């Protein structure tokens, strides 16, 4: 059994999800260099044996936490994207789904410290590469939707830039959720951003 199996496919038990979040807090307070699997076990209310069974090292733990975080989001967003063949309804649905997922994590109190985890992994070469690969993988899928639907745009060459713009909007929304922006305002942000796509669609759309 691979050490990453517990989170394969983005599925994770609520216990392990809480454990992962507690562990990121340990990294923040104790430091990545100093934290041991024992510290992580104490913080998460699990046993050292349990963690060692799943993660051989704290680097593997970080990689797993990152994969969990991104897989959970991207898998859900991919399935929403696949439901819509036209670009506008697809982007609209993904924006709304993204808001809901981000708010769920905010309300549950998890993922608040994932920015710190991401800054930690940036200081480790292998983990940094893993983080970029995960983000690029998620981004590529979204970009490919714009490329597939470029025929719907006035200017086909705008497809990539529009995809990057929406990636920016997703990141911005994620931060605004953490800043406590209201549900209503988050939806207004999504609606405003959709005007950009609307202005780039051919009239027939």
């Amino acid at each position, binding site marked *: 059994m691979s050490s990453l199996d517990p989170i394969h496919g983005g599925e994770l038990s609520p216990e392990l999800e809480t454990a992962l979040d507690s562990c990121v807090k340990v990294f923040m307070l104790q430091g990545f*260099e100093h934290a041991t699997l024992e510290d992580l076990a104490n913080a998460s209310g699990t046993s050292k044996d349990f963690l060692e069974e799943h993660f051989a090292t704290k680097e593997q733990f970080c990689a797993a936490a990152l994969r969990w975080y991104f897989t959970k989001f991207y898998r859900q967003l991919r399935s929403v994207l696949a439901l819509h063949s036209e670009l506008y309804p697809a982007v609209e649905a993904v924006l709304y789904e993204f808001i809901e997922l981000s708010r769920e994590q905010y309300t549950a109190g998890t993922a608040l410290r994932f920015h710190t985890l991401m800054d930690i992994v940036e200081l480790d070469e292998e983990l940094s590469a893993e983080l970029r690969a995960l983000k690029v993988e998620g981004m590529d899928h979204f970009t490919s939707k714009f490329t597939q639907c470029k025929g719907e745009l006035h200017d086909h060459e705008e497809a990539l*830039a529009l995809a990057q713009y929406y990636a920016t909007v997703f990141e911005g929304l994620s931060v605004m959720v953490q800043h406590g922006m209201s549900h209503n305002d988050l939806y207004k942000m999504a609606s405003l951003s959709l005007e950009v796509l609307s202005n780039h669609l051919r009239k027939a759309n």
Partner: protein
Amino acid sequence: MTARDSIPDDPPEKVEEIFDKCVRVFLLKGYKSCTMDDIAQAAGCEPDWLKERYPTKSELTAAALRWYYIKYSSNIRSELAIHQDIYAAMEATLFAFIDICFDQLETGRGLFVRTFIDISNVDDTVLQAYQELQDGWEAQILEKFSLCRSELKNPEDAEILACYVITVIEGLYELVKLGKSREVMYKVAILSLNVIETKLKYGQPDRHSG
């Protein structure tokens, strides 16, 4: 003399080096576990010099957070003052923001604001500094939209458009961290301005030069 007062007296490069290194030390050694000596060693300065200016980690972290916010907001404040109309002001603001992010990276500094914010969740001194700074930063954008309200088809859109620009700025920061090029970010900024353009009474001349 407070930690905040001491900043202007010291060479900016030295202060910025300390603020950049302290985050790296926090991440590797832990915010709770690290000592001021660890930070001084990483930043290449004397521990006594550091402690004289920032007696505690909380004060150092709050000062570092303040430094980052002031760095961004002073540039943006001047752009907002130079450009009278809202479109030009926001275009200049977004471009200035992108440039500051890239300047940070090109001088070997990290983009660590999120970690500071996460630390604010476990340190009340840092939390207070963060809340004041974030409110001040958002107020700058909001104030400009309020001043230019009459340029909008619907003047009541001023507040929500200010929130939109702040959302875009937060997103730009993350994409720069992800390694997108400056040109891509300029292009994204121009696309984002499309929203403001459609809300203006009289539209905008073709001024997109990138």
